[in-house]
């Protein structure tokens, strides 16, 4: 978790880090992409997260659906998916340990145990391994 967060933090600009160090009233970097459909870091997957509703509630357990397509556009089956994340500006991880509990078919995976206990900028990372290879997806959330 720490290594993931530090890697993520290293992607921030120096100016942002200076801002964080100097001021605890933290706003998220202004250039974050909050879209719920993203390509993986090395382009092996295209993924979409579908939370229960339009807005992601604070402090409540949620079930998400993660949809995975390969670069070819075909849904990915039999993927192994791990879930990670946290608040880069706070240096802590997720308050729960969510995991994929079921493959729903057609590239959909049920993710249970999602929870965000405070407002602000969160990242959720999925590490995906399938016959297409191993790659990671990072989603930004603003609660």
């Amino acid at each position, binding site marked *: *978790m*720490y290594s993931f967060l530090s890697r993520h933090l290293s992607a921030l600009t120096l*100016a942002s880090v200076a*801002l964080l160090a100097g*001021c*605890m*009233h933290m*706003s*998220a*970097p*202004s250039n974050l992409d909050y879209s719920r459909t993203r390509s993986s870091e090395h382009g092996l997957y295209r993924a979409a997260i579908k939370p229960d509703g339009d807005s992601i509630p*604070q*402090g409540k*357990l949620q079930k998400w659906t993660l949809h995975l397509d390969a670069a070819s556009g075909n849904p990915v089956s039999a993927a192994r998916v791990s879930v990670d994340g946290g608040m880069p500006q*706070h*240096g*802590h*991880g*997720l*308050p*729960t*340990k*969510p*995991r994929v509990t079921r493959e729903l078919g057609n590239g959909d995976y049920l993710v*249970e*145990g999602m*929870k965000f*206990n*405070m*407002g*602000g900028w969160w990242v959720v990372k999925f590490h995906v391994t399938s016959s297409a290879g191993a790659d990671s997806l990072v989603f930004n959330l603003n609660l």
Partner: protein
Amino acid sequence: MRFAITAATLAAAIATTFGASFGASLRSAHRGGWTDAERAMLKSLSLASLEPLAPDPSNRFSDDTTAARLGERLFFDTRLSSNGKVSCASCHMPDKDFQDGRPLGVGVGTAGRRTMPVAGTAHSPWQFWDGRADSQWGQALGPLESPAEHGGDRVQYAHVIASEYRGAYEAVFGPLPDLRGLPERAGPVPDSARANAWSRIAPVRQEQISRMYANVGKAIAAYERTLEFTPAKFDRFVDAELTGRQHAAESAFSDDERAGLKLFIGKANCATCHNGALFTDNHFHNTGVPQATAGAQNDSGRAVGARSVVASEFNCLSRYSDAKPEQCDELRFAVTEGPELVRAFKTPSLRNVAARAPYMHSGQIASLGAVLAHYNAAAPAPAGKSELKPLHLSATELRQLEAFLRTLSSPITTSATR
């Protein structure tokens, strides 16, 4: 605190103080001096935003009024202790916000931590400072068999139920098991004589007694669920402020209170963890609280509590729970290891905080002002890593924060004995 600052002055202030990233929030400053984001935050902290209490699936008697009436009697019954002098109410005193004002709870002996208040805890997935119980009923069973608190055991309590509460118990939970031939005192407790006596009881009878014991917890929980906060001055302030009504005497904030609230939801970062209508994120944080003084053992907090709740005989997934496994998601998806758990303790509600000195999990800090000084300084943690960073608040700002915190006081109400 109504601002009469031009847009240009604001922009200059933003640029010099914080950098451009705060522009968006400050540009929208308007009615009452609150930004849209601040107004949303005020609303979320108001008691009016508290969602109705959901049933506890692990306790099918949780909303049973007969169970609550039984639970209330049990809560105040000193016969549920080894020396006949300690009840739940000995530490959870109704006239003190259901806590005791002591650094450490005192029952048969002295407990290892500060007594926590009860009101509103039915809304939390975790109980105790370290979350080693995942329900109110599971929580209630811990102190009853703790040598330092009630000091008794489940067979002793089964006899008390059978002799003093048979009718009331059976009306809720059905027939009592046959207790004939059982020793007076026995249970899986540290005391070796009673533990040995417990080990000599047949497993089928042990389970009957443990189920009875769980039901005692479920009745107490049914009572505790009825203990709720009433609106405080803060809630009346928010109600009037957000609807644009003229403040009445009972809702008007002083300049200090208003400035303190602004700090609380702003640069003091309090509302990061103390969020929602109960001012808690129901999670666990290392905030660098010093060791309790004089011979206190190192307290690892959630690092131990997480393992304890998973292993608990009375958790949501246990045989004594009424929940289906899929209704125990807090437990199923709990973080059970990692450096963040070391010396992390549950965020307490701040409702009634001003009337609840001393503070922290072992009463280490004597006054509200000293608590604020602790957060302002953000000293390193004695173990694990503190999540705090220094706040650099002035003495005036600390005074304003304290003034705001004093607006969160209100009486506790119960519907159990109406």
